[in-house]
Structure formats: structure tokens, C-alpha cells
């Protein structure tokens, strides 16, 4: 009994990791209908930024993270204004290809700058610390913090979407870009801010990745696969759905692994297929800010 409780807890914690990876993806897809294939590499880029400012320049991890959030927001804003904006349109292929190219560029630029070594963000005792939830149920501090961070980020984004005027503009643009523009919303600015927020959120994912395991310039795409599944299981564009989607994949993986570790990854993919078969539009279609 205790054993299965442990399986479920580990699965939920794993879900937090996947959700955090998927949030930025979910955000730009919901507002702009843009599938950002470079999202994983941008997370790795953010991880290197934090590594550079913390380990190499000696700033505390918190300060480095705050700096990275600001820097990645600006980068996202500029990326949209100068690159992605030019290819966004009715065609679905050009933006896909551009983000794919961006992924290759980011990987190789990182390889040239930082070399191929596998790196890590140092967080001291926090990395291996744990809390006891029950006598035989120990939960790692780092994964727990990741889950809490995912929930806080989603709550903040929901606040932004439903309580602010910029959030109203996001929702309006997501619903109908043409009419929104007629109402005086500057679509170019809204999109640029959305990509900026997406990259700012990716910094949180980057820190969690860097503390949890090693990263190297080429690891982004592999880490992105489960994020895609989380977004699709949750329902495209729904942020809480993305969290739920991450947990479905996470719990499926830990249950599969407990039966036989060879089935761990497969179990996650099977859960993904099962959800698609039963609810092709995801668990929460249109439950978020986007009701298209």
C-alpha cells in the first residue's frame, strides 16, 4: 500500500517537471497557434545563462534566476518582433521550419561557447534534501519545489490572463486576431509579449532541469517530447490542463516502471495515446483562456 502511495507521489512530482517544461509551449500555442520546436533548446539556453551568471560570475542562484528571467523576456520579445513575426501567417509550415532552424542554431552556438561538457547548477544540500510526508514516504525537496513552482507559475499566468487588461488583450487576440485589431489591440506587441513571457517561464524550467540533472547543448529536444505530450493531453492552450497532462504522463511512467522499468517510457506514451483515443481534444479542451 505504502509502496503504491510512493509510486503515485513520485508520478505527481514528475508531472510537475513535465508541466513546467510544457508551460511556455502551451502559452505560445494558445495565443499564437505557434508550435515552438526550439522551446527545449531555449530552456537549455536559459540554463546556460543561469549557469554563467551563478557559477562563473559568482551571483547567488536566486539573483541569477531573476536576471535570466528578465533577459529571456527581452530575448523572446525581440525574437518575435524580428524573426517569428515575419513567418507567422495562414501557412503552418514556415514558422515550424524557422523554429526548427532556431533549434539547430541555439544548439551549435552553445556548443561553440560552452563546449560539449555536461553541466549542472549547484544547489548544495537542497539537491539531495528530502522531507518525510509519512513514515516510509520521503519526498525530495527539489522535485517538490519544482511542482510548487509549476503551480505558482500557472496561478500567476491565470491571474494575468483574467485580471489584467493585457490578459484581456491576450484572450481577445487568441479568440479572433482580426476583430481584436479592429478594437485597437496591437497584435504585434501582444504576440511579442506572449513569446517574452513564454521564455521567462522557461527560465523556471531551466533552473529545475539544471538542479535535477545534467544538461549539455544538445539535450533540449529530448526533454521536449514529454512536454509536447503534456500540452496535448491537457488540451491545447489550457494551462491547468497542461499541469494535469504532465501528471498523467508522470504517473503513467512511475506505475509502468514499478511493474517493469523497461516499460517506464512506453507507459507514458501509452497513456498519451489512450487519452487521445478517448478525448481527442485533450482533457480540458478550451477550458483555459482560449475557447476556440
Amino acid at each position, binding site marked *: 500500500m505504502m509502496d503504491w502511495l510512493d509510486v503515485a507521489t513520485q508520478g505527481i512530482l514528475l508531472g510537475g517537471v513535465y508541466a513546467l517544461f510544457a508551460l511556455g509551449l502551451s502559452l505560445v500555442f494558445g495565443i499564437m497557434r505557434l508550435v515552438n520546436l526550439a522551446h527545449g533548446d531555449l530552456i537549455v539556453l536559459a540554463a546556460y545563462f543561469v549557469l554563467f551568471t551563478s557559477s562563473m560570475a559568482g551571483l547567488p542562484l536566486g539573483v541569477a534566476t531573476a536576471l535570466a528571467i528578465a533577459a529571456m523576456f527581452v530575448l523572446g520579445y525581440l525574437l518575435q518582433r524580428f524573426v517569428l513575426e515575419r513567418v507567422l501567417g495562414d501557412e503552418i509550415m514556415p514558422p515550424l521550419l524557422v523554429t526548427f532552424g532556431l533549434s539547430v542554431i541555439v544548439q551549435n552556438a552553445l556548443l561553440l561557447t560552452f563546449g*560539449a561538457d555536461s*553541466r549542472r547548477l549547484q544547489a548544495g544540500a537542497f539537491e*539531495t534534501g528530502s522531507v518525510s510526508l509519512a513514515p516510509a514516504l520521503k519526498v525530495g525537496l527539489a522535485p517538490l519545489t519544482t511542482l510548487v513552482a509549476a503551480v505558482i507559475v500557472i496561478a500567476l499566468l491565470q491571474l494575468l490572463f483574467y485580471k489584467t487588461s493585457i490578459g484581456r488583450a491576450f484572450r481577445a487576440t487568441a479568440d479572433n486576431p482580426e476583430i481584436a485589431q479592429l478594437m485597437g489591440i496591437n497584435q504585434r506587441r501582444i504576440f511579442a509579449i506572449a513569446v517574452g513571457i513564454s521564455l521567462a517561464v522557461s527560465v523556471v524550467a531551466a533552473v529545475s532541469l539544471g538542479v535535477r*540533472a545534467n544538461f549539455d547543448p544538445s539535450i533540449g529536444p529530448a526533454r521536449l517530447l514529454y512536454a509536447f505530450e503534456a500540452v496535448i493531453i491537457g488540451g491545447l492552450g489550457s494551462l491547468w490542463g497542461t499541469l494535469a497532462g504532465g501528471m498523467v504522463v508522470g504517473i503513467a511512467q512511475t506505475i509502468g*516502471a514499478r511493474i517493469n*522499468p523497461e516499460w517506464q517510457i512506453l507507459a507514458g506514451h501509452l497513456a498519451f495515446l489512450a487519452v487521445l483515443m478517448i478525448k481527442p481534444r485533450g482533457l480540458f479542451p478550451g477550458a483555459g483562456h482560449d475557447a476556440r
Partner: protein
Amino acid sequence: MKPTLGRFNRRQVLRGTAGAIAGLGAASLFSPAVFAAKIIKIGYVSPKSGPLAAFAEADDFILGQFRTTTKNGLKLGSQTYQVEVIEKDSQSNPNRAAEVAKELITRDNVGLILVGATPETNNPVATQCELEQIPCISSVAPWQTNFIARQANPADPKSWKPFESTFHYFWGLEDVIGVFTGMWSQVASNKSVGALFPNDGDGNAWGDKVVGFPPVLSEKGYKLTDTGRFQNLTDDFSAQIAAFRSTDAEIVTGVVIPPDFTTFWNQAQQKGYKPKLVSVAKALLFPTTVQALGKNGHNISTEVWWTPSHPYKSSLTGISAADLAKGYEQASGKQWTQPIGFVHSLFEVAIDALKRSGDPADGAAVAKAIGATKLDTIVGPIAFGSNKVPPFAARNIAKTPLVGGQWRLNGDRYEMVITENGQAPQIPLGGQMQALS
């Protein structure tokens, strides 16, 4: 109508052309040799970019040294040859590795190809060389992955055949098993071993019930808990940790990629699982990956193929292992890594074989010379056809010594301390095995 070309008929044109070609041929045969030396072209394939790039990190340093050494050409008999190395990037992709090997052979006309960075780079290159009958020397992968995996039917030992043109030197699975069990025997434990064997070439070979760890371990009285082949880049190891706990495994072993070892080791500590000995291959090859573990990498053990304290020197330049490593550290500002010695040794074996071949342009002669190699290199003695290798592979495979060691934290830098040398006593011990807890 008679085919004519201007004022000449067809026969005249043909005769004239043949004469001209003969003249040109004669000219290039006799005259340039006086002015320009002949060129030996050596192809070198390595993963300069992509996930395996750490293996190629010392390439520029080693190749720079090699080019300086051979600047004045190579004198074979009365003939001086210019040596040219053509580098190609495999991009850590086996298909790309095969492609660049083909390019080296057909476009650059190299006479010999060197490669030394994991089976993903070595095997496609060696396969191309074998097809085109171009000599190839490879290293840095257990010999089984080179010799057995490239056979038409790896599952049927009776069908295995030696190769004509491709040669490989490194240690084998039997050596790493010997080193790991040698290390474990130094510390009192309950002999219960948990294994992390992923679903890749290495993991499947290590976990193989015939040639891998399981038969040897049970013979030596160890109890193995192998939970099965997991996928690389797994994010959760709680199932394995639970299984190791239930069999009270005081020893953990495996062949895992760096991110997975970090995930496993962090999770093990979060869950309070504390084995006495952890010996893993692959994950802790490079000092930077141990450094990435923070303080938690202290006393984790791994197999060691080369260190600056190996008592060997280069046959090419006479430089010692210690000085080669020091030179790299000064030139790059980074800590030495194990592949440095092996990349250097590839060029030692190549030059030695070319010298003995008689005619470096004759592929068959060069291949024959490589097969007859008996050379003391910076990674130890290399000799093909020795009885240390099973007879079926002896023609193509040579073995280099393998020892084991623990990474110890010295200040805030990790140092490799050799703790087990049962199979290669000539390599000095740096200390005794220490338990983790």
C-alpha cells in the same frame, strides 16, 4: 558518313590523345618527385559537435602537436613523404560518420583512416573502410562492440569472421568486470549488487546473460538485481531504487549516461538509499561530469583506461603521459580527460605501421603492417594477434590495460585515485578503496 573531327579522322585523334596521356603520365612520374615530396593522407573522423563532442575535445591539441611533429615529413627509406591529416566531423551521428568516411576515401583519397570515439562513430567508419579495403585503426570502445557488433550475425559466434582492413584496440567487457569486482572485493559488503543497464548498445552488452556481467557475478558469489533495460534520459528512478532496497543492494553498478546517473544518485539520496560502493562506467568518464555532482561524487568509482600517472610514453615524441596531460591543461585551461592519451596513440600506431609498410600508398601492405603492430604507446603496449584476446578476434583486436579508481574531492577539484590494478600491476596504485558510507 565518316566521323571526323576537323582535319583529323577518328583514328588520328585517338592515337594523338593516347600519346599525350602517356607523355603526361611520364612527366608526373619522373619530374615532380625531385621538387615535391609525396603525400600520405590520413583521414580522422571524430564527433566535433553533438552529444559525443566531449570525446573530441582534445582533437585540436593532439592534432596540432602531431602536425608539428611531422612538419618535416616522414622519411621511409630514401623517400620523404609529407603527412597530411584530413579531419571530418561525424556530428555524433552514425549515418554522418559513414558519409564522411566515404568522402575521405573517394574524394580525398586518404590511405588510412583513424577513428576513436564510441561505437556510434567507430563502427560506421570501420564498415566503410572494410568495404573499400582502406586500412582503419579505431579505439575507445570495448572491443566486443567493434568486433562482434559489426559481424553479419552477431548472435551466432560460429559465423564470425575476421576483418581484412580494420583494426581496433581497447579493453573488453571481461576486463571491466574484473576491475569492478576487484574494487568491490576490497570493501566488506553483503555482495548484493544493483544494476543500472539501459536499453542501448552498452547496456545490452553489459546485461547480457552470456557475455555480460550476470554469469561472472554469480560465479564470484555476487547476487545481482537487474531491473531491466530502461530508456536513456529517464526522469525517475524510484522503481530501481525500491528494487535495490528490497534486495538490500550495498553495491550499485551500471553503464549510464551522465544526466541519468545524476537523476538516479540525487533521487537515491533524497530517498535515503545509501549503498557502500557505486561503480559506474560512462557517466563519470570526464572530470566535468563528476564536478557536476557537487560534493556527491566523492568516492564514486569507475573504470580507468588512461591517466597522467600511467607509466607510459609516446613512441612518436617521447613525451610522458604526465607531460601530455599537463600540456593539454596548459593549452586549454581544462582538466585532462581519458580520451587524450588514446587519440594521441592512434597517430602513434598509424605512423609506426606506415613506416613498416614499405609502401604507404599500398592499402594491403599498410593493413598487413597494422596487423603486425607491436608498439609501446602512451596508453600502454599494443600488439595484435596476442593470446589475451579470444582466437577468433586476435587478428583485428589488441587490448590495452584497464584499472579502476575512485574520484576523490581534493579541495574543490576532483582527482582520480587508482585503487585497483589487479589486471595491470605496472600501473601504480594511488590509494585503497574507500566505502561511501
